[in-house]
């Protein structure tokens, strides 16, 4: 047996000093040589453990083998037969807890960089239009399916159903498709051109896109079902922001992460005034939260020109839900982490502008429901951080619009929809749901997995 190669090919990245001042992508992607070198580390083990770690079941060893052999069109075909959005997944999937965690080389500390290879294949295809064989058009079933929401769950469900011959229409409330991929994740982590290209691919499969269409207002789910759609998939995400409910939160200069990121990413406020939508440029910015959205917000604030950006998080680094890679990126760029710190109230001036956050110091107590040690206030530890802008990245909950306008759906006390874990079937006839609307805010790939499973179940149902 050949000796194991445990040297992962590193990802070339923009220099931290430079990238803190631009919105260009941080990770630059492999060259063909680098991709081949990384691919050749794969031992093609028969267990295919990596595939079991992938929520959409990509044939990972096969597409990696195609890269090693330099057969890029085949690599594209293998990858896209299971995943309609590889350029997105290759960038934002938490591979370290999924396929790369189950890779046979993970035990040796050097799993194959599956995500980077996936990204390479997607980028190669975009740069070599027409080189990969298009898939054969399916036989039309003549049946219409409505997909509500064009985020990762909706796009995946739509693509899979279109490939099975259904006539699919996606209804999207915003003016572009992509959901959180467009409004939430910043350009420097997921260029919008990539998202658009993958949305275009889904459209090329015959999927119809209805933008500016707010289901629940423009048409209800029942109206869709009465107007010729034989099934409806709800992939409306977790798009409503949460606030802390502490004094001073409505001061000027305090944003939900959703608002801040929507202004910056979707509305391109970083190009203001060329683009009409403004965003405040904070000098001293505090971002509250420890997830990926908090890291994204902090790094956007830095790129917009802040002198100082803090992450304020009530637990310690070990409990941070953000991807390790994103925490490291943020640290490298000079974001200051104020851990075991929790806001008590926001302080404002007489013009209603935020000027500071009064915080508590925290310490870790016994584990809570999430299994993480519960942060406890240190009494009398209050101190103030001077800021002129705050972004609250405390997580999101489902937008109640669809559930509140649809009879017969069941919701949990968190506002998520009740749906079968395997199939996404809701308790309402002909209605499926998947992604954050069911799980609460989670990952792009788990939403895609849910879209995939629901599409298969819808197909089974419509075949009768």
């Amino acid at each position: 047996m050949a000796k194991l190669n445990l040297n992962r090919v590193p990802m070339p990245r923009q220099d931290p000093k430079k990238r803190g001042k631009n919105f260009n992508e941080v990770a630059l992607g492999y060259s063909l040589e680098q991709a081949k070198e990384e691919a050749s580390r794969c031992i093609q083990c028969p267990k295919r453990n990596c595939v079991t770690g992938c929520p959409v079941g990509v044939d990972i060893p096969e597409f990696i083998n195609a890269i090693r052999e330099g057969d890029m069109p085949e690599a594209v075909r293998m990858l896209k037969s299971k995943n309609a959005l590889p350029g997105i997944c290759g960038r934002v999937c938490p591979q370290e807890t999924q396929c790369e965690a189950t890779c046979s080389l993970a035990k040796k500390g050097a799993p194959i960089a599956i995500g980077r290879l996936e990204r390479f294949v997607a980028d190669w295809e975009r740069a070599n239009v027409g080189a990969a064989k298009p898939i054969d058009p399916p036989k039309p079933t003549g049946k219409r399916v409505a997909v509500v929401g064009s985020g990762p769950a909706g796009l995946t469900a739509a693509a899979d159903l279109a490939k099975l011959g259904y006539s699919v229409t996606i209804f999207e409330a915003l003016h572009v498709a992509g959901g959180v991929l467009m409004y939430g994740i910043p350009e420097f982590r997921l260029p919008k051109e990539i998202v658009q290209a993958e949305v275009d691919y889904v459209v090329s499969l015959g999927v119809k896109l209805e933008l500016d269409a707010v289901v629940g207002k423009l048409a209800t789910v029942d109206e869709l079902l009465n107007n010729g759609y034989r099934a409806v998939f709800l992939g409306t995400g977790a798009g409503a922001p949460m606030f802390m409910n502490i004094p001073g939160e409505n001061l000027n200069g305090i944003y939900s992460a959703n608002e801040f990121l929507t202004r910056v990413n979707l509305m391109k406020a970083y190009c203001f005034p060329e683009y009409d939508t403004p965003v405040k440029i904070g000098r001293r910015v505090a971002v509250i939260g420890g997830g990926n959205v908090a890291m994204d917000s902090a790094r956007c604030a830095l790129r917009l020109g802040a002198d100082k950006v803090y992450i304020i998080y009530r637990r310690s680094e070990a409990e941070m839900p953000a991807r390790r890679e994103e925490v490291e990126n943020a640290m490298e760029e000079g974001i200051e982490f104020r851990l075991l710190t929790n806001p008590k109230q926001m302080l404002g001036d007489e013009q209603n502008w935020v000027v500071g956050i009064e915080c508590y110091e925290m310490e870790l107590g016994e584990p809570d429901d999430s299994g993480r040690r519960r942060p406890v206030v240190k009494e009398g530890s209050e101190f103030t951080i001077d800021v002129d802008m705050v972004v609250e990245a405390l997580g999101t909950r489902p937008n109640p619009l669809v559930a509140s306008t649809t009879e017969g759906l069941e919701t949990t006390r968190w506002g998520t929809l009740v749906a079968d874990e395997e199939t996404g079937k809701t308790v309402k006839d002909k209605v499926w749901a998947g992604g954050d609307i069911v799980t609460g805010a989670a990952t792009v790939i788990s939403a895609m997995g849910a879209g995939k499973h629901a599409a298969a179940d819808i197909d089974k149902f419509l075949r009768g």
Partner: protein
Amino acid sequence: MYKILLKQDLVPGIHLFRVAAPAVAKKAQAGQFVVVRIDEKGERIPLTIADWDEKEGSITIVFMEVGTTTARLALLKEGDAIADFVGPLGVPAHIEKFGTVVCVAGGVGTAVVAPIARALKQAGNKIISILGARSQDLIFWEDRLGSVSDQFIVTTDDGSYGRKGLVTEPLKELLESGEKIARVIAIGPAIMMKFCSLTTKPFGIKTIVSLNPIMVDGTGMCGCCRVLVGGETKFACVDGPDFDGHQVDWDLLFARQRIYLDEEKCSFEQWQKSVQG
């Protein structure tokens, strides 16, 4: 794209568009709004639905030029198209038979009040309308609002037409007249809505206002439009835009409407330079 079927310049600085949006027209109700984005580089702004025609498949919007987006919008002509036109958003106005309802309309707010007054009239209410403007040349839809009103009062700040003074004066007189008034609807500039609410409060008469904070998506996604009502934070886009005027924290609304004053000025100057070449 959403085509402009008709454009009318109602008064200097206030324009009317009838826009082809059949799906929105099918669902629109009084008190709801649309979010408009002119083009690729445009911002999303909320505009109240002033009227709708399901048969024609059109929505009527009335807007005042106050900044870059509304100034850019005003340059569009019949036959031009708007990139995005999302709606109908927000909770419709509460319509039922209350008895006598006083509808107070200030400036461009007349276009918001008119369909609500019409719906209230159709529901069997007696409508007393008060239309206020700075001067005669800024008054529009007098006939529209008048035609659904049992009693109709016009005020101008400068006395050039109707009664000289503010809308709150005839409002107070009506409240003092002893006529049983079930409800007051006051829609116009925030400062007018605040003072109408202050006027009715001692009389304990429910007063509904339509709030107009800054919005982005208009569907409850961002929280930019948060207002404090009865001590609770609400999103005007999905919880409103109509609220109980006696419960609204007006100072917070005024402060939050000023968040982007500097940016708005910068954007407007930049735009002016670009159109002057």
